């Protein structure tokens, strides 16, 4: 069982993590955060393998990975 923790308020919604996720379980939220960005969210957390590709790609270090 793996999981990721997204720091929603620090996310700028660039979508690079969505692009690199091998399981395609990330998407940009429809609601903006306090900075006005559509932050990333995980919609199928049970499928996460904890590969950390999203965290490696994230330019703003908003993703923490546990495995």
């Amino acid at each position, binding site marked *: *069982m*793996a*999981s990721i923790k997204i720091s929603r308020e*620090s996310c*700028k*919604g*660039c*979508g*690079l993590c969505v*692009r*690199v996720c091998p399981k395609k379980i990330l998407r940009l939220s429809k609601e903006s955060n306090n900075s006005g*960005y559509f932050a990333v969210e995980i919609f199928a957390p049970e499928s996460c393998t*904890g590969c*950390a*590709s999203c*965290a*490696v*790609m*994230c*330019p*703003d*270090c908003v*993703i*923490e*990975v*546990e*495995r």
Partner: protein
Amino acid sequence: MATVFKKTDMLTEVPFHYCPGCTHGIAHRLVAEVLDEMGCQNNVVGVAPVGCAVFAYNYFNCDMQQASHGRAPAVASAIKRVAPQNIVFAYQGDGDLASIGMAEIVHSASRGDNITVVFINNAIYGMTGGQMAPTTLIGQTSTTCPGGRCAAQNGNPIRVCEMLATLDGPAYIERVSLADVPSIRKAKKALQKAFNCQKEGKGFTLIEMLSSCPTNWKMTPEQALDYTKNEMQQIFPLGVFKEVK
């Protein structure tokens, strides 16, 4: 469950001011992670450039100095000479390093200063609003070459790694890319090599990182990474250009 990835302590809690999708953040993190893993948190001095990364001193959790435009290698060289017990790195963009700072980087490399230079090449002046840089590709548009860079009028892009590799001073020179996850992992390995060379006193090391500038390239972050991969890597081939054993 164990935490397998989190923001390194070598970076402060200050959020990066970079545009969404800018790979400067990835480069910052890689440098910080490598220094953290080397266990030299308390004896690192970084030199911030002029350009988008001018506020790097707010982000790195180590001693930092900000240099005049293009002069980061000269400042880093001085710091290393007066306090050689420190790991010293300069972090520069392509407008800073390859244009106004060309003399400093060439002479620093030629002297074989025992410093590490992290060179972020995004083929454009980012902070000042997207003007043509010495590294802008032929045909690439910018605010000062709206019709695309033309070799007859503007010259050809400068390949810094290849040029510096002809000198005797450098110990390690590699060009890496930040366009995808495997490339980023390779980039981290390159940084580890460079900083280890410095630790062993081998001399000047430079890692060029091909980056993206979605804002000034007028692209989405994803398109910008594709451009880095498909266009930039053609002109700026990846690889090790100098390695002193």
